[in-house]
């Protein structure tokens, strides 16, 4: 055993101890010096006297759509993956899925406003954005005509253009109610089953108290499924018991299910009146479920489809 080898064996314990201690000291210093960023109160406020935001990050399909509808589309610098309308959003950078946003990515865009649906998250990212001094406004989705109008007005206020917001909101409310009235004046009373592919091979069927259920009611149809609240996985028995006359699916979902053939091949659906008649109605996802500016048009389109053959 040479002296060199002995030195080698002894060396690392000294050197690595020193390194370890140095690292610990540096980390300790930084930890101690940390500001109370973790607990800083939210800075985003709904002060309408703030200057109009020029760099907006829009989260949520309906929120984005509303911003464009209010004429502020040029000020949007980035959107989330669910914002697909209008087409201009296609060219914008995407900050990810609305529930799993990254703070630094958004900060890199130097926004002065993040306008988001209430589903935006995770909460830590929202807090980090506010700590950075970015104004973050979260708007709840209320799945009624009145709720849609209210959100449009709120967005208008946040954008600094109350007038446009109120006008569009009023329009949507008026047209929406009119569409509802038309639909319910001559209700088709079609029994509708709303279905969507949740991913992972599971089909979910809407019961009562959901957005699709509300749309069906607005369009003068009847929700074929009333035995549960919320969404439940599709089962053949439930489908047969519901005996729908029509199956409603989001348009993207139809493609992923393999078209009408795919839909009627699902368990139980083929033997329902809808299945036998191959009556599958597909409507654009965002328009149908977004409760945004196109809500009146959505009601009309759905009620026409329900009334038709």
């Amino acid at each position, binding site marked *: *055993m040479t002296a060199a*080898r*002995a030195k080698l*064996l*002894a060396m690392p314990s000294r050197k690595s101890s020193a390194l370890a201690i140095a690292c610990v000291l540096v980390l300790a210093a930084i930890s101690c010096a940390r500001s109370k960023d973790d607990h800083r109160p939210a800075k985003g406020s709904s002060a309408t006297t703030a200057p109009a935001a020029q760099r907006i990050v829009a989260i949520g399909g309906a929120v984005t759509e509303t911003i464009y509808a209010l004429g502020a589309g040029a000020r949007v610098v980035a959107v989330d993956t669910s914002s697909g309308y209008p087409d201009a959003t296609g060219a914008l950078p995407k900050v990810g899925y609305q529930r799993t946003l990254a703070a630094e990515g958004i900060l890199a865009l130097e926004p002065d406003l993040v306008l988001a649906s209430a589903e935006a998250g995770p909460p830590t990212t929202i807090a980090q954005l506010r700590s950075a001094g970015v104004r973050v406004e979260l708007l709840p989705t209320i799945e009624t005509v009145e709720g849609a109008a209210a959100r449009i007005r709120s967005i208008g206020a946040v954008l600094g253009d109350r007038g446009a917001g109120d006008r569009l909101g009023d329009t949507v409310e008026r047209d929406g109610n009119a569409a509802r009235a038309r639909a319910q004046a001559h209700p088709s009373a079609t029994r509708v089953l709303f279905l969507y592919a949740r991913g992972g091979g599971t089909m979910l069927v809407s019961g009562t108290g959901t957005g699709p259920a509300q749309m069906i009611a607005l369009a003068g149809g009847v929700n074929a499924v009333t035995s549960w609240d919320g969404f439940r996985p599709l089962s053949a028995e439930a489908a047969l018991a519901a005996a729908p006359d029509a199956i409603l699916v989001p348009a993207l979902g139809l493609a992923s299910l393999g078209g009408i053939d795919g839909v009627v091949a699902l368990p139980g659906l083929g033997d329902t009146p809808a299945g036998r008649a191959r009556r599958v109605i597909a409507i654009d996802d965002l328009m149908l479920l977004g409760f945004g500016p196109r809500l009146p048009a959505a009601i009309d389109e759905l009620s026409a489809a329900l009334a038709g053959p």
Partner: protein
Amino acid sequence: MIVAEHVTVRIGAAVLVDEVSLEVKAGELVTVVGPNGAGKSTLLAVLAGDRVPTSGLVRLSDQVLARQTGKQLAARRAVLPQRAGLAAAFTALEVVMLGQAGGDREGRAERAAHRLAAVELGHLAHRSYPTLSGGEQQRVQLARVLEQLGDDGGRALFLDEPTAALDPRHQHLVLALARRAARAGHAVVAVLHDLTLAARHADRVAVMHRGALAAYGPPAAALAPDLLHRVFAIEFDLVNAGGRPLLAARPASPTGA
């Protein structure tokens, strides 16, 4: 130093070891021989403290084995099993060092290297253990066990068929090392298959037959051909080779003559 008192091992109706009492003194090399199934390995396991006998007890340096903790036993005795597996690519040197208890690292590596040289594997110290032949691996394990034992004497060494995979040169090397350990003051017990090896190196030989001790004494007395014929059911010729005994089995001729 090792005292077995009426040790019996029973499993169900089978009696593996039948009322064996013996004593092994420090400085002695005792070999245990017998046909397959005679209970040699079982007896060794009991003497080493691996197995608690159904009745009877074993004392090591006047301490009852069954009452010792694993750590206490490890300080008092070392065991070389018949086949020691190793689930990792240690070097031979590292394997030997596994037997060491403490001390500074540099000194330990040096001692381990010496130990490997003693088993004629010094040149393979940094070879990966799984790449060694079966015999070489066995010798590395022996080196490890000898490291655990130490050279101060006063401990017990148990070897279970240590010569199984070795060529003749190394068979004698291993037993010479066992005898050297005995001379250093340890009590050494080795289970062997080869009667000639047993006769040549042991101070005393224990002959086991159906779980019982058929003979226990110096090789010349214990390995008497009549006894061997009875125990092994085959005849032996005792050959005197330059003063050393050589036992050659004489199988019955195929024609039955």
